[in-house]
């Protein structure tokens, strides 16, 4: 009897301890499964041999891994003795950046290479960047790369990220609407010209000439850059109430008040509502970076053959007509298994001419290697879907503004500035008709308080 009781006791205790182990392991399992569910591990044939160096790379756009996969294949062919094999993990945008931030902060679990979106990039340059400086591997390519795109991912003279595209801002015109109104877009050089043309468009077609943004800063950045100004001062302090800024916001508000432009549905063109609205032929033009081309192909098929690309109008002739906006900087982390190999591969995969050819062909971005812009075989390839879609060739515009592509700096305080402008300032001025100068002064005060200046 006693033995029987004891047996039950053991079973009971065994069961309890089993539960304990299970509950602890259970926590782990669910966590891992959850992360597995949301990320996609991508099997890409890289043609690597058995003894290739194995690395891991995180991306937030799955298409990018295809591009890198192609570049690994080429690298392995050209460097049979220094082969590498990369396992790609595609994560949702926020997830990937958050995980990377935590991993770098704690020094554990970071991938060897990673894509970082430009808006998030400043976060990774704070403190001592846990990223490898890429200066030495950039050197051979430096002369043919758009310098401002390298500056964007630099801190204290060290380049930490390599750009994917230029993102040069241009004006996209809907030629169908312009023809109906009798406007020749090639004659629009200044904002005064634009306003005159806009009045004609509104009169003849009762459609809008352009759009104002409430949650993005494409037009505003373009207006700021053409006055050679920025959201920050030279020594990195917020500068959102400068006279250039007030001039830019006033221009946008004036055009809104005159009914020439309207607030974009969705708050900016790069949204579902925006695509729909533009596709229906409601607006005659929009200021966007060149990567917006791929959005036309993917989301606005009705405008095929109707969209022309031209430089953005300026306040006064002679001002720089473009600025590089948006982008993805690719980095090598300090914890990478073979930093030198990773760095050299990265430079090859993002800066070489063959890489940039792929950037244009696969991703449809304006490549950072300017040698390519002059290569007519590539730029005027009739088979290319981008060349086919647009009225004129995108590279003609790129070559025209080649030496006018300005930089809007991305610093540690940039996320704060973007936040204040994107959630408050643009809404107040463009949507609610607030006075630009007063609103911008408020924003400046708020930023100074928040940043403890």
């Amino acid at each position, binding site marked *: 009897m006693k033995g029987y009781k004891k047996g039950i006791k053991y079973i009971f205790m065994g069961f309890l301890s089993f539960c304990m182990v299970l509950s602890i392991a259970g926590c782990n399992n669910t966590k891992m499964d959850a992360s597995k569910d949301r990320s996609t591990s991508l099997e890409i044939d890289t043609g690597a041999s058995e003894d290739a160096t194995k690395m891991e790379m995180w991306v937030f756009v799955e298409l990018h891994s295809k591009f890198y996969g192609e570049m690994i294949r080429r690298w392995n062919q050209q460097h049979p003795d220094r082969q590498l094999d990369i396992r790609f993990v595609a994560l949702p945008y926020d997830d990937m950046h958050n995980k990377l931030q935590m991993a770098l902060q704690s020094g554990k679990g970071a991938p060897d290479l990673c894509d970082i979106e430009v808006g998030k990039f400043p976060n990774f340059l704070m403190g001592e960047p846990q990223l490898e400086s890429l200066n030495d591997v950039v050197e051979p390519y430096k002369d043919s790369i758009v310098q401002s795109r390298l500056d964007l991912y630099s801190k204290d003279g060290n380049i930490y990220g390599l750009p994917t595209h230029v993102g040069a801002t241009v004006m996209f015109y809907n030629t169908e609407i312009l023809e109906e109104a009798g406007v020749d877009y090639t004659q629009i050089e200044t904002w005064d010209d634009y306003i005159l043309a806009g009045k004609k468009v509104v009169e003849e077609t009762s459609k809008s000439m352009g759009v104002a943004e409430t949650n993005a800063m494409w037009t505003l950045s373009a207006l700021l850059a053409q006055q050679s100004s920025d959201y920050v001062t030279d020594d990195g302090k917020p500068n959102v109430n400068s006279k250039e800024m007030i001039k830019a916001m006033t221009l946008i508000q004036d055009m809104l008040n005159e009914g020439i432009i309207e607030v974009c549905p969705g708050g900016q063109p790069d949204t579902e509502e925006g695509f729909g609205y533009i596709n229906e032929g409601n607006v005659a033009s929009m200021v966007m970076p060149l990567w917006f081309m791929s959005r036309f192909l993917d989301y606005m098929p009705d405008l095929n053959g109707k969209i022309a690309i031209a430089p953005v109008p300026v306040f006064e002739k002679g001002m720089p007509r473009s600025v590089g906006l948006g982008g993805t900087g690719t980095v090598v982390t300090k914890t990478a298994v073979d930093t030198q190999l990773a760095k050299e591969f990265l430079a090859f995969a993002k800066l070489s001419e063959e890489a940039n050819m792929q950037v244009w062909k696969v991703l449809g971005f304006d490549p950072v290697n300017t040698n390519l812009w002059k290569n007519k075989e590539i730029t005027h390839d009739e088979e290319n879907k981008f060349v086919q879609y647009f009225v004129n060739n995108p590279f003609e515009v790129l070559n025209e503004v080649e030496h006018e592509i300005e930089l809007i700096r991305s610093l540690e305080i940039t996320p704060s500035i973007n*936040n204040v402008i*994107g959630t408050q300032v643009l809404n107040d001025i463009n949507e609610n008709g607030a006075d630009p100068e007063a609103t911008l002064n408020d924003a400046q005060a708020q930023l100074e308080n*928040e940043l403890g200046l």
Partner: protein
Amino acid sequence: MVRLKKILNSQKVAPYVFITPFILTFLIFFVYPLFSTTIMSFQSVLPGQIEFIGFTNYRRLFSDKIFWKAVSNSIKYMVVTILFLIPFPMLFAFFIDKKIMIGREVFKSIFFLPALTSVVVAGTIFRLIFGELPGSLMNTVISALGMAPIKWLKIQKTGFAALIILACWRWTGVNMLYFLSGLKNIPEQLYESAAIDGANGFERFIYITIPLLKPTTIYVLTISIYAGLAMFTESYMLWAGNNSPQNIGLTIVGYLYRQGIEKNSMGYASAVGLILLIFTMGINLTQLRFTGVLKKEEE
């Protein structure tokens, strides 16, 4: 081995063995993070540069307009959701519990369905319903009533209303289930004797159901206070991100996320988190003391 068995089996030790899993989880996932958050709230935390900065984070916090905007949003949200999410689920539960009610199970499932729907999906659908274009569902409805289309999610009042509607849609069923289980504990005889004494249905609800549901109500109130103040997902999904126009949908947790993750200011975010903890604890402890729950335990 024998000694170990003896110790484990002794009446003094066994209880502690049993509660070890809870204590461990509590220590690892609650006490330790709380402890390190407290320390971090006095620091500036950056990779390779962690320094002690005293009360700077808190000083910045108290003069930070956006933080107070977030606090006021969260408190407003908590109050309004409590006003809707306690009386109505209670009433629905009362009806569904009635045996003469037709289609009880169907209603129960329908009310509970939103809780099973992913917030991501629900948020997206609500965002489209409250879209700013004239073709969105809500704008079609109001234009049928002769009103001009509204940019719902860009205006403080309508945006907040959309948020409340989303919350009510989502949580009514859950709270109703709590009340239903509470109702099951009320003996049928009480209703019968009240009926014999001549009480009508309304009086029975007021004088029997509500008082006897008090423990359930207090429980629902407690979790609603916490859930209201800690709300984040609904707002994040409704505005497709943490940044709503004029911060009309920004909550305390949203602000914590903005500072800690979006601006990589972990120390500052820790201070926000601690303030949230103090708020929630303060309100809930007052509430529990007021409703007499804590007193009972003391006795």
